[in-house]
């Protein structure tokens, strides 16, 4: 059991000013080092002794990790504050599922501290930013001294608190392709109180042509070891005329396809039952945002 009042662990604190300095430190200390950005995940992990790094490498002073650029794709520096990402998505009225998710984190203080890269690198099964980035077909760019690579978010998450990142790698940016004109996306989570970790969350992105759902992507959080897409339900709806019967069917397929756990936030059976209605609500919200009528 940890101590939440003080940090009992000892470590060296390293403050690189550039990405290349950080990479050099990572190759030097690798396995024994931990990257820290806003600290809202890493500090509790230290308090609960879930991690015990000999070196903490802060990326908070690396200004090259803090940017939002948009041309054909949206590029968000991994060190960009959640607050700034939320503000950007809100101003642009695009990437609305990501905006919904960031609004649902709620706490002003956490939004001021936490970063988008940090939310993904912690790789919580319930990470709020993950389902939206999955349905928006987000990718992450990872870099080490040997070079950079880009992986889809689906491949990035390897397990609860586990990612595809090697010990000598760090996340450079998050990339999101620009959504099509006739598309809409949304995110909804169910949590005990306003600013809490989700019991279950859902993101949907749809493209439509009249009543036809030309493409549909669905992702859920806190229903498996990692945030996941639900291809079986996506196949039910993609290319189909949306009617109530098909919609019901897809919701049933979805709830049968997930593998939720029972933990302190919720039970397996609750998560499975509520997944249907959560999906329906999220789909309807995304569908409405395409500009047509459901």
């Amino acid at each position, binding site marked *: 059991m940890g101590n939440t009042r*003080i940090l009992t662990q000892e*470590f060296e604190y390293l403050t690189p000013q550039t990405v290349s300095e950080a990479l050099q430190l990572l190759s030097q200390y690798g396995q024994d080092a931990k990257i*820290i950005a806003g600290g809202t995940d890493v*500090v509790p992990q230290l308090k609960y002794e879930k991690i015990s790094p000999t070196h*903490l490498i802060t990326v908070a002073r690396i200004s090259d990790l803090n940017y939002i650029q948009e041309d054909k794709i949206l590029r968000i520096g991994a060190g960009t504050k959640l607050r700034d990402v939320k503000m950007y998505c809100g101003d642009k009225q695009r990437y609305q599922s990501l905006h919904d998710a960031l609004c649902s984190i709620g706490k*002003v*203080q956490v939004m001021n501290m936490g970063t988008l890269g940090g939310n993904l690198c912690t790789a919580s099964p319930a990470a709020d930013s993950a389902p939206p980035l999955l349905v928006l077909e987000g990718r992450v760019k990872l870099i080490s001294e040997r070079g950079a690579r880009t992986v889809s978010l689906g491949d990035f998450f390897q397990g609860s608190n586990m990612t595809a990142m090697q010990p000598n790698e760090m996340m450079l940016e998050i990339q999101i392709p620009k959504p099509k004109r006739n598309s809409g996306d949304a995110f909804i989570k169910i949590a005990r109180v306003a*600013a809490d970790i989700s019991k279950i969350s859902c993101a949907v992105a749809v493209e439509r042509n009249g009543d036809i759902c030309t493409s549909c992507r669905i992702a859920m959080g806190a229903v498996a070891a990692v945030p996941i897409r639900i291809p079986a339900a996506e196949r039910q709806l993609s290319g189909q005329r949306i009617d109530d019967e098909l919609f019901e069917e897809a919701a049933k397929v979805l709830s049968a396809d997930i593998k939720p756990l029972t933990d302190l936030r919720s039970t397996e059976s609750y998560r499975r039952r509520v997944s249907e209605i959560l999906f329906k609500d999220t789909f309807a919200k995304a569908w409405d945002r395409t500009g047509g009528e459901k």
Partner: protein
Amino acid sequence: MMEKRNVSYTVNGEVIELLVEPNALLINVLRDELYLTGAKYCCGTGQCGGCTVLVNGEPILSCLTLAVAVDGAQILTIEGIAEPDGTLDPIQEAFLDNAAIQCGYCTPGMILMAKDLLNKNPSPSEDQIREHIKGNLCRCTGYHRIVKAIKSCRE
């Protein structure tokens, strides 16, 4: 043995230089070294907002912040919001006038959140007020009087 670090902050307008351990938390440095006990240790895990202070004008959780991480920052704690002569900030007056305090543990965080909100938006709606203090828990008042106090400070 960890090497101590030199840090400097401007705390409530005063420049302060300190030697801190890399694993020292900002809340403990404020409380135990600077004797600014307004920021409260409550949950220690970022759930409750009791340890809120403003760093470079933005509210953060001092129990999840390493003291070394905010080297060079401007820090405002509840002790710094009254005038130097002791005249209370209008928000502090409003909390007294509206009896928005019971046990008082959440109050420093609540007042700093109100200060932050009113700095950015001098006339927030009730929804915006509730949204802004969403990360600050109060187990006594039911929030009603806190919201009322903040509303009374609107322009």
